[in-house]
């Protein structure tokens, strides 16, 4: 098999806080191949956004990254690169889409400028050429009247349109890896599917790799090739998407599956189907971190933390002492 485009090895991202070290990402390993989409699913606060920012190298100054942590992109160890080379990589080879298009676009710059500046920066285009390319990109992401929209400011566009603009920015330099962090959470339900389908279509057309981060199992269903489920800073289950849905092993994953929002739910509904709250990541308890909330908990779960184990056929991994085959089909 070809070398993976992205390898994340034992990623640990901790934050120094007034109360102590917060283990936001605590030993994550995965690989992602060219042209594939990985769905990363978990409750809010499980470390998925921090994981995304760790890959981008955009972490606040109170961050401590683990000694053995490596992020290898296209054969290059990103941790070993200097800030200048990282900047050259960001936006051109690795691009990112943020959760809330209301806040992720600059309110005082026109849409065209915000798309064009990446092209000027990374591809050395002239202002004029960048603007022309911005119009094409806006057309690609399905914005009507792109030559008018290109000179407008973000507040003149609807939420869905703004997210399309954010996608156009991300796609502008033909990145090889696209990280979409909850790209539809802040949007109206009616446009969510459009945006997700647009992302999937662009990913396939451009043969990019994509990491699709979400708290909603329904988002990754049918729009990803494989899924990693995160809990308390770790991956607790991983499998090819159809396999995961068919053959769920972790009680936590099953709970997430049960909490997929339905069309008749009000928008922005939070996951509340899982009882209890996520553990304290500064002073984590002993044993499996999900144990206090697990319906199938046994003595062993409270004493020892289960490692992520790959099943013998190599298509499914889980961090659970007593994997189930719950078989919840939504």
């Amino acid at each position, binding site marked *: 098999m070809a070398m993976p485009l992205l390898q994340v090895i034992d990623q640990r991202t901790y934050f120094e806080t007034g109360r102590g070290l917060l283990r936001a990402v605590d030993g994550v390993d995965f690989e992602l191949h060219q042209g594939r989409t990985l769905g990363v699913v978990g409750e809010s606060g499980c470390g998925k956004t921090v994981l995304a920012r760790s890959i981008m190298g955009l972490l606040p100054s109170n961050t401590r990254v683990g000694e053995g942590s490596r992020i290898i992109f296209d054969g290059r160890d990103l941790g070993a690169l200097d800030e200048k080379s990282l*900047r050259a990589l*960001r936006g051109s080879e690795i691009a990112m889409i943020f959760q809330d298009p209301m806040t992720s676009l600059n309110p005082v710059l026109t849409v065209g400028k915000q798309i064009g*500046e990446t092209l000027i*920066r990374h591809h050395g285009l002239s202002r004029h050429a960048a603007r022309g390319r911005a119009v094409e990109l806006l057309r690609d992401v399905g914005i009507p009247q792109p030559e008018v929209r290109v000179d407008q*400011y973000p507040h003149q566009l609807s939420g869905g349109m703004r997210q399309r603009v954010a996608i156009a920015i991300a796609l502008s330099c033909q990145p090889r890896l696209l990280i979409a962090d909850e790209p539809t959470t802040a949007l109206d339900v009616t446009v969510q599917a459009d945006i997700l389908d647009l992302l999937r279509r662009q990913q396939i057309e451009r043969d990019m790799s994509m990491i699709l981060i979400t708290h909603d199992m329904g988002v990754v269903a049918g729009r990803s090739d494989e899924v990693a489920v995160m809990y308390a800073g770790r991956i607790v289950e991983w499998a090819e998407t159809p396999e995961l849905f068919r053959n769920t092993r972790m009680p936590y994953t099953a709970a997430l599956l049960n909490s997929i929002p339905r069309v008749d739910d009000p928008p922005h509904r939070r996951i509340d189907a899982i009882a209890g709250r996520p553990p304290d990541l500064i002073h984590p308890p002993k044993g499996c971190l999900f144990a206090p909330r697990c319906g199938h908990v046994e003595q062993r779960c409270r004493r020892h933390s289960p490692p992520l184990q790959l099943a013998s056929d190599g298509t499914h991994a889980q961090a659970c002492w007593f994997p189930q085959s719950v078989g919840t089909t939504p």
Partner: protein
Amino acid sequence: MRYILRRLRRLCIVMFAVTLLTFLLVNVLPGDIAYDIAGQDASEEDVQAIREDLGLNRPVLVRYISWLSGVFVGDWGASFRTGEPVLEAITSRFPVSLELMLFAQLLALLLAVPLGVVSAYRAGSRLDRGIAAAGFAAVSMPAFMVAILLILLFSMYLSVLPATGYEPISEGLWANLRGMILPALSIALAEWTILMRTLRAEMIGVLQEDYIALARAKGMADWHILVVHALRPSSFTLITLMGLQVGNLIGGSIIIESIFGIPGVGRLLINAIYARDFIVIQGCVTFIAIAYVLANFLVDMAYALLDPRIRVSAQHG
């Protein structure tokens, strides 16, 4: 539009109140200018004649109304001392004051913006603390103090810039600016801190915004992010503040003009105060109030120009 009209109405009430109060204060209270003008040896009749001449024997309110109606047609009265028409005296000196204030504000911004941006970018660093300390020192030093120190340093020890003496622009731009550097710098050094602190605080907030994170995710260079993405959204409060600071600028220029012997409105006012030339005082205060209120109005307009959110809603509304 409705908002502008409401503001204009309030503005009119305010201007009316300002002029009336000034007039009452200046005219009712002690000191009879007629005695001053007539001199010590004058007889009671002479004084009476002068009063008659100046219209001082009419009731205050009548005098106010005649003065006010004069104001609208450009007759602001004439100095009791020199006979110079007040409006002309002010308008001929105003450009000098305006130049001083604009120059001072420009210098203050030249100091405040880069330092504010740097200290927001490196918040908490040694550099940031150093800038904050310099700021504390500067706010503790009023303009007249700065002026003394600058004169001592640049005019006496280094002998590179003049301590007094104003050259009109007709003498050449450099001759004019040379005389303005120290006065403007005196005001600027006393005023830049507040601008810097405000910009720093705003910018630290803006740098936390998602769109800054996105700009970084796009691989933009730090300086590009600071200048293109962060500076403009951070500067809205700065502009409001500059409106509020016009008062300080005027106050500063009154003192600085008299220190450096610059023939501006401030010096006109101070001299009128020393000479108790009431009609000139009245004119200067009225003029300053109008200029001040207009400056704040202009600042609001500048605000709208910079923030596309406001600009667009104004076009639609």
